[in-house]
């Protein structure tokens, strides 16, 4: 079972700042989405609204066609694990957190939870306040995945893991997604490592939607044009320029947009080199601050 999400004109204002700015976004169920944004871009606010941790005041959010706010039947099927200490409850140990989760999550899988506990070598009897950062991340992931919620959202919750554990997490996430398809949203600002897991990527910046596309299409949309400065300038006139660098007579301009085969052959004739841009670089260009 999977849930789609339909967000219309969502706005959230905090004193002095607009955290989410008139966001409209429709996500089909059953895919793995990457939600990318810098720190403070509104990722956590957005996910908290979808999970009904916060009330929507402007605009609408529908999950599976229903409003999540104060809808227990729906929210027990929506899992959000934030990087912060949602699961760090004073006086509670790992076993206790798992027991709570089992009670609240109708699709909870004990056997899977145990496998994750073993994988991450989590100490069942240790108090959660005494867990290391990596162990807290691992506990979050265990609860997040073993809940098997039709909408599962992990908000940077795996960033506390060390590299071998992160790769173990990617493997187990993919394997479990294949066996139990559901809608998964992973938010992150570290992209290269995970981008291949995403079917689609959503980039937000200052609460606004900057890009939303298939990961592969998005990746192919950026290009670095390198060659003699004058030719590069001519070629990139009218294109969306994300950045430029110059070294002597050679110039490199990063552009965003589709470059059709005709333009590619023009580039070749002019002695220009076109090369793809890594998703991480594209993300950096698309979300860098306005020049002051």
């Amino acid at each position: 079972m999977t849930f789609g999400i339909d967000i219309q004109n969502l706005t959230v204002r905090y004193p002095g700042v607009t955290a989410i700015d008139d966001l409209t976004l429709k996500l089909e169920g059953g895919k793995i989405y990457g939600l990318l944004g810098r720190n403070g871009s509104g990722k956590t606010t957005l996910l908290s609204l979808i999970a009904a941790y916060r009330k929507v005041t402007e605009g609408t959010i529908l999950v599976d066609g229903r409003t999540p706010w104060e809808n227990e039947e729906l929210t027990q099927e929506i899992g959000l694990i934030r990087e912060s200490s949602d699961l760090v409850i004073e006086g509670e140990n790992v076993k206790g957190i798992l027991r709570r989760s089992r009670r609240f999550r109708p699709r909870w899988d004990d056997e899977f939870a145990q496998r994750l506990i073993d994988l991450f070598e989590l100490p069942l009897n240790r108090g959660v306040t005494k867990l290391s950062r990596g162990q807290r991340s691992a506990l979050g992931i265990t609860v997040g995945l073993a809940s098997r919620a039709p909408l599962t959202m992990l908000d940077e919750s795996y960033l506390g893991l060390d590299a071998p554990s992160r790769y173990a997490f990617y493997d187990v996430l993919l394997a479990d997604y294949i066996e139990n398809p559901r809608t998964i949203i992973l938010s992150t600002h570290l992209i290269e490592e995970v981008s291949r897991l995403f079917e689609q990527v959503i980039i937000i910046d200052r609460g606004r939607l900057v890009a939303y596309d298939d990961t592969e299409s998005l990746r192919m949309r950026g290009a670095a044009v390198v060659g003699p400065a004058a030719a590069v300038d001519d070629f990139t006139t009218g294109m969306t320029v994300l950045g430029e660098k110059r070294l002597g007579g050679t110039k490199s301009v990063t552009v965003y947009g589709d470059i059709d085969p005709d333009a590619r052959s023009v580039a070749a004739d002019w002695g220009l080199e076109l090369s793809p841009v890594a998703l991480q670089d594209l993300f950096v260009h698309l979300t860098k601050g306005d020049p002051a």
Partner: protein
Amino acid sequence: MFDDRSPIYHQIAEAIKNDILSGELGADEQVMSTNQYAAYYRINPATAAKGFQQLVDEGVLYKRRGIGMFVSSEARDMLLSQRRERFFADVVEPMVAEARVIGIPLDDVVARIQTLKGRESA
């Protein structure tokens, strides 16, 4: 395994074609399922499926309902003739152009090829 030079589904298709060309995958042999492939290479299953679909569209693989995907019997011959057609444009012409740019006489290139040819037949 994969780089940023081209779409990953395209690289998946190329990798399987190379396995067919090298003989690692024979005619009518079953290929990994898209899910196995996705899990093994840590990529999204939809991306893997796109690569496999491209191969089905090109006639390199065929589907058997409920069982999986297999290498078509004519795949290797087809790929060989495609690669042979591209060989001069993709390999020889850029080599000649490069030799010109860096000032290697074409006679030297030809001589080297003759030497390699001699070694091969020896």
